[in-house]
C-alpha cells in the first residue's frame, strides 16, 4: 500500500487479480473488456449471417427469371434477415461497445455488475444460436420480423417456427435489460472522483438516456412475446378476434417497442459521432447542454410515434394527427445534434481521417433517411408508401446511415484501442467507397421501386409490374456493397495482425480511455484519476503516465479484492469503495439453466419448465454466496488521503438502484398488460363476454392482507437488525406472502376454467398469475434474507440484502393492489360496454 510501487510491479499485482484465465478458464471471465469484445465479435458474426441472407434476397429479386427460393423459404430468409440485423446485430453491437467503453471513459475499472454482463452475453449467444439452429434446420420464423398476429398465431403458423422467434428473442432480450440496468447504474455511480454529471463525456449522457429507453421500451415487446407464446401454447386468446382478443394489440405492443428501438439503435451511434467528431475538429463539442436536451427530447418523442407504423389500420384521423406530428417533431432534436456537429467543425480546424470519412458517409446517408422519414410521417403519403419498397429503402437509409456508418467510424477510431495497433495498409478508403456507392446505388432507386408499386415481402418480381430494371440495379449494387464489407473484414484483420504498434493516444483525444495502455489491461486503470474539468478535455498522455505509476486513487492491491470507486451521482464526490466479484462460471451455468427453460418451452415439455426455473433460482442464490462481507469494515483508505466505506456498508450502494431500475422495467411490463386489457375493452370485437366470474371477496381480502403486511414487516426487519429481531420479522414477511399465495391460488382456480373462452378472463387470469409469481418471489426474498442473516452477511450497516427484499415486497404490494382492483374493474367496464 506504499507509494513506492513501480508501475511494472503494480501492473503485475493488479493483473494477478483482474486477469482472465487461459484455456477453458476464459469461460469464467466477467471483465468488461472481455465481455464487451465478445459481444461485438458475436454481433459481427451475426451481421455476416444477416448479410448473406440479404444477398439471397437481392439475388431472388434481381429479375423476374432469377427466383430460386420458393415463397416459404423466402419468407424464412427475409424474416431472419430482419430479426438478425435488429436483435442479434444492432442492439448487441452497441451494448458490447458500451460495455467495453463506458468504464474506460468514466474512469472506472469495470461495470457495476460484471457477472450480469457475462450472464447477458451468454443469454444473447444462446438465444441467438437457437434462431440460427432453427434456420439451419429449415424451421426458422417466417412471419416477418414484426410477427403480426394472426399470421403468427397457432392456426396460421402451426409449426415450431414462430415459437423459435418468440422464445429466442425473449431469451436474447434478457441481455438487453440486464445491460440497460447495469449501464444506468455504472454511469450514475461508477465514475472517477470529481467527474460530476456536467463533466461526463457526452457519450455517457447518450448511453444513460439509451439505457433508460431500453428499460421502458423492451418490456412491451417482452410482454407481447409472452402473451403470444401463451396464446400459442395454452390457447389464451389475447389476439384472437373470435374470442375477444385483437390482432391490433400485438401491433401496438410491438411498435411501442419497435419505434423507440430505432432511436435506441441510433443514439449510441450518434453518441460515438459526438465523441469522435470533436477530436478531428480539434475543438470540444459545441452545445454540450443543447445536445443533452436534444437527446432527452428525442428519447421521449420516440415513444410517441409508434402508430406511424399503423396509419393504414383504420385509426381515426385525430389520433393519427398526434402520431404524425410527433413523428415530424422528432426531426428537430435530430437537427439540433447535426448543427451542434456542424458548429463544432465550423469553429475548429477539421482534419480528414478514416473515421471522418465514415462520418461523412453517416451525414450523407442519414440525412436522406431522415428526410424520407419526415415524408413517411405524413399520413396520406404513408398510406401510399406503407409496406412498399419505399419503406424498405427508408429504413435501410436510417439504419445503415444512422448505425452502420457511425459504427464504422467508431471501429476505425477505437480499433487501435482494442488492438493496440494502427492501420498500415490503405484499404479503408476503397472499402468505404465500395460500401458507400454500393449502398446508395442499391437503395436510392428502391424508393422509386416502392413508389411504383412494389410491395414488401413479395417472393419475386412480377413482370407485369414493370420493375425489373430497378430491381436489377438494386441487386447488382448490393454486390458492390458486399465487396466493400469483404474489404473491411480484410482491413480489420490486417490491422489487428500487422498494424503498427503505437505508444499512446494516437488521435490526440481528451477522453480517459486513452489514458491507459493499449490494448487495455484487464484492470483498465492502474489507479483511478481525479477529474477537475469536463472529461473530454483531459491531457490523456500526461494522465496515462501518472495513473500507470499508481499516483491516482486505489493505486495498490489488498486482500485480492477487485476494487473500484463509487461516487455520489451528481457531484462525483467519492462515496464508497466498490468491491467487485471475481471471475466465476456461475453466469455461464445460470445462462445454460435459463436456456434449458426456453428449450423445454420449445419442446412443449411445459411440466418440466418449473424445474428449470428452480435451477435458475438456485444458481442465482449461488451468486449471492460469492458476494458481501461477513464483518463491518468501517472506513478503508483508497489513496490520496481519503477513506471510504465498502459499498456493502454504504447507504447509496449500487444494488438498490439496480433493483429500482429492474422494478421500473417490470412495472412497464405490468402497465402494458393492464393497458392491454383496457385496449381490448375499447377496441376488440366480441366484448362484453357472456359472463365472468365474480371474484371471491374473502379470497381477495385475505390476499390484500398478506400483500400489505409483507412490506410493513419487511421494513421492521431492516430497522430491527440492530436489536436482533430482523429474523423474526422476516418470518412474518414469509408468512404474509404465504397467506397471500393461498388466497391467490383460490382466485386462480376460480378464473382458470374461463381463461381460454374470452380475452377478458385470459387477461384477469394472467394478472393473477403475475401477482402470484411476485408473491412467490417475495417469499423467496424473505427466506433469502433469513439465510443471509444466518450466514453472518447482515449487520445494521450491511443491510443491503434486506433492503433489496423490502423493495420487492413494496412493489409486490403495489402491483397486487392494482391487479386485484383491475380484475374487478375490467369486468365492470366491460358490462358498461354496450352503453354507446
Amino acid at each position: 500500500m506504499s507509494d513506492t510501487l513501480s508501475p511494472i510491479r503494480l501492473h503485475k499485482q493488479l493483473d494477478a487479480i483482474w486477469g482472465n484465465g487461459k484455456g477453458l478458464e476464459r469461460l469464467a471471465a466477467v471483465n468488461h473488456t472481455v465481455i464487451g469484445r465478445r459481444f461485438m465479435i458475436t454481433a459481427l458474426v451475426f451481421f455476416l449471417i444477416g448479410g448473406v441472407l440479404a444477398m439471397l434476397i437481392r439475388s431472388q429479386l434481381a429479375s423476374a427469371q432469377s427466383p430460386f427460393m420458393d415463397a416459404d423459404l423466402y419468407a424464412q430468409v427475409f424474416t431472419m434477415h430482419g430479426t438478425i440485423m435488429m436483435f442479434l446485430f444492432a442492439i448487441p453491437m452497441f451494448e458490447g461497445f458500451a460495455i467495453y467503453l463506458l468504464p474506460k471513459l468514466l474512469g472506472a475499472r469495470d461495470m457495476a455488475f460484471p457477472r450480469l454482463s457475462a450472464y447477458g452475453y451468454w443469454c444473447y449467444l444462446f438465444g441467438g444460436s437457437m434462431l440460427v439452429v432453427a434456420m439451419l434446420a429449415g424451421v426458422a420464423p417466417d412471419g416477418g420480423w414484426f410477427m403480426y398476429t394472426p399470421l403468427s398465431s397457432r392456426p396460421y403458423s402451426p409449426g415450431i417456427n414462430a415459437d423459435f422467434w418468440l422464445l429466442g428473442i425473449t431469451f436474447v432480450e434478457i441481455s438487453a435489460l440486464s445491460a440497460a440496468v447495469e449501464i444506468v447504474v455504472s454511469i450514475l455511480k461508477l465514475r472517477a472522483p470529481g467527474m460530476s454529471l456536467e463533466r461526463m463525456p457526452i457519450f455517457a449522457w447518450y448511453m444513460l438516456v439509451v439505457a433508460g429507453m431500453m428499460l421502458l421500451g423492451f418490456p412491451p415487446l417482452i410482454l407481447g412475446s409472452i402473451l403470444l407464446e401463451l396464446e400459442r401454447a395454452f390457447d389464451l386468446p389475447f389476439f384472437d378476434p373470435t374470442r375477444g382478443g385483437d390482432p391490433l394489440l400485438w401491433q401496438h405492443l410491438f411498435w411501442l417497442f419497435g419505434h423507440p428501438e430505432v432511436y435506441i439503435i441510433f443514439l449510441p451511434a450518434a453518441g460515438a459521432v459526438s465523441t469522435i467528431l470533436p477530436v478531428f475538429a480539434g475543438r470540444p463539442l459545441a452545445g454540450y447542454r443543447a445536445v443533452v436536451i436534444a437527446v432527452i427530447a428525442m428519447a421521449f418523442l420516440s415513444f410517441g410515434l409508434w402508430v406511424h407504423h399503423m396509419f393504414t389500420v383504420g385509426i381515426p384521423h385525430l389520433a393519427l394527427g398526434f402520431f404524425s406530428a410527433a413523428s415530424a417533431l422528432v426531426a428537430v432534436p435530430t437537427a439540433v445534434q447535426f448543427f451542434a456537429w456542424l458548429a463544432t467543425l465550423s469553429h475548429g480546424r477539421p482534419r480528414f481521417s478514416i473515421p471522418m470519412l465514415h462520418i461523412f458517409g453517416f451525414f450523407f446517408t442519414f440525412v436522406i433517411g431522415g428526410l424520407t422519414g419526415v415524408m413517411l410521417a405524413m399520413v396520406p403519403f404513408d398510406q401510399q408508401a406503407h409496406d412498399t419498397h419505399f419503406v424498405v429503402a427508408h429504413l435501410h437509409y436510417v439504419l445503415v446511415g444512422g448505425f452502420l456508418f457511425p459504427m464504422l467510424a467508431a471501429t476505425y477510431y477505437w480499433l487501435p484501442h482494442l488492438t493496440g495497433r494502427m492501420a498500415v495498409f490503405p484499404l479503408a478508403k476503397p472499402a468505404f467507397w465500395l460500401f458507400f456507392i454500393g449502398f446508395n446505388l442499391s437503395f436510392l432507386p428502391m424508393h422509386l421501386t416502392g413508389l411504383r408499386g412494389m410491395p414488401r415481402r413479395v417472393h419475386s418480381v412480377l413482370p407485369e409490374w414493370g420493375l425489373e430494371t430497378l430491381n436489377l440495379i438494386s441487386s447488382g449494387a448490393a454486390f458492390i456493397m458486399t465487396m466493400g464489407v469483404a474489404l473491411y473484414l480484410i482491413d480489420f484483420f490486417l490491422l489487428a495482425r500487422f498494424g503498427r504498434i503505437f505508444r499512446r493516444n494516437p488521435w490526440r483525444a481528451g477522453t480517459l480511455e486513452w489514458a491507459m495502455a493499449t490494448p487495455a489491461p484487464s484492470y483498465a486503470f492502474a489507479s483511478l484519476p481525479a477529474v477537475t474539468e469536463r472529461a473530454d478535455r483531459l491531457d490523456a498522455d500526461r494522465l496515462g503516465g501518472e495513473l500507470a505509476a499508481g499516483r491516482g486513487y486505489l493505486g495498490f492491491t489488498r486482500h485480492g479484492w477487485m476494487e473500484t470507486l463509487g461516487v455520489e451521482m451528481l457531484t462525483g464526490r467519492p462515496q464508497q469503495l466498490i468491491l467487485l466479484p471475481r471471475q466465476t462460471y456461475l453466469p455461464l451455468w445460470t445462462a445454460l439453466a435459463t436456456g434449458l427453460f426456453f428449450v423445454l418451452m420449445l419442446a412443449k415439455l411445459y411440466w418440466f419448465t418449473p424445474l428449470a426455473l428452480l435451477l435458475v433460482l438456485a444458481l442465482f442464490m449461488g451468486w449471492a454466496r460469492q458476494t458481501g462481507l461477513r464483518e463491518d469494515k468501517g472506513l478503508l483508505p483508497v489513496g490520496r488521503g481519503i477513506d471510504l466505506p465498502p459499498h456493502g456498508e454504504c447507504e447509496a450502494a449500487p444494488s438498490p438502484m439496480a433493483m429500482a431500475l429492474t422494478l421500473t422495467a417490470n412495472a412497464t411490463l405490468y402497465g402494458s398488460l393492464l393497458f392491454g386489457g383496457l385496449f381490448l375493452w375499447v377496441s376488440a370485437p366480441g366484448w362484453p363476454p357472456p359472463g365472468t366470474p365474480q371474484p371471491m371477496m374473502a379470497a381477495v381480502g385475505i390476499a390484500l392482507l398478506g400483500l400489505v403486511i409483507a412490506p410493513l414487516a419487511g421494513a421492521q426487519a431492516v430497522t430491527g437488525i440492530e436489536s436482533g429481531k430482523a429474523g423474526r420479522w422476516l418470518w412474518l414477511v414469509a408468512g404474509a406472502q404465504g397467506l397471500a399465495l393461498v388466497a391467490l391460488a383460490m382466485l386462480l382456480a376460480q378464473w382458470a376454467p374461463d381463461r381460454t373462452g374470452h380475452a377478458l378472463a385470459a387477461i384477469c387470469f394472467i394478472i393473477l398469475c403475475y401477482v402470484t409469481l411476485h408473491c412467490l418471489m417475495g417469499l423467496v426474498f424473505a427466506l433469502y434474507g433469513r439465510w443471509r442473516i444466518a450466514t453472518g452477511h447482515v449487520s445494521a450497516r450491511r443491510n443491503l440484502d434486506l433492503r433489496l427484499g423490502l423493495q420487492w415486497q413494496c412493489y409486490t404490494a403495489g402491483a397486487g393492489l392494482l391487479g386485484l382492483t383491475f380484475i374487478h374493474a375490467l369486468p365492470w367496464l366491460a358490462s358498461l360496454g354496450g352503453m354507446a
Partner: protein
Amino acid sequence: MASTLALAGCGGPVSTLDPAGPAADAIARLWWVMLIGAVALFILMMALFGLVMLRPGAGSGLSRRGWILAGGLGMPLPILTALLIYALIQGERLLPHPDGGPNGGVVRVEAVARQFAWEFHYPELGAGAAGTTLNVLHIPAGRAVDVTTRSDDVIHSFWVPRLGGKIDATPGHSPTIRLRADRPGLYAGLCAEYCGTGHRDMGFTVEAHPPALYEQRLRAALAGEEAQ
C-alpha cells in the same frame, strides 16, 4: 444516360406516381412537393458539411450557439409545421365523410380478404342481386366509392396504387377507405400486408365502368360468377 431517363419514368400499372383518381393524385402532389423540399434540404446540409470541412473558419462568423439555434430550431420548425398542416388538410379531405362526394352519393362495397384471394360484396345493389365477384372489383367511374375491408383469417391490405392509399383488412375490424377512379378502365390492385406464402399472388383488378352502364355490367358480372 437514356436508360437512366427511361428508368426515371414514373408510369406503370401499379405506380402511385401515375394517379388515376383524386386521392392518388393528391398524394402524388404531396410527394412531389416533399421531394423538391427534401432535395433542397439535402443539398443545403451537404453544402454546409462541405463548407465547414473544406473551408475551415468560413462558418465561424456565426457563433456556435447561433448555428444550433438557427439550424436546429429555426430551420426545421417552420418547414415541419407547414408540411404537417398541408398533410393534415389533405388527410381530412381524403376521409370517407358521411356527406359524400361530388356527383351524388357514395357507392359502398365490401372487400373481404382471405388467403389468398379477394371477394367483393355489393350490399347496396337492389334485391335479388346478392353475390360476390372474385378478384375483380366493379365500381362506377367518377363517383366516390367507399371500400370497407374485412378478413376472416390473417391481416391483408387492400391497395390500388393508382387510385389511392391502402387500408388493412384486419380480422375483427372493418375500416373504410374512399377511392374514386376518374375514368373507366382497369386498375391493378395488390395485397400490401404480408399474409403468407401466397402474398405476391393476391393481386386483383378494379374495373371502373361508365356510371350509366355500371349497374347493368355489375349484374352481368355477378350472374357470370354465379354461373361458374
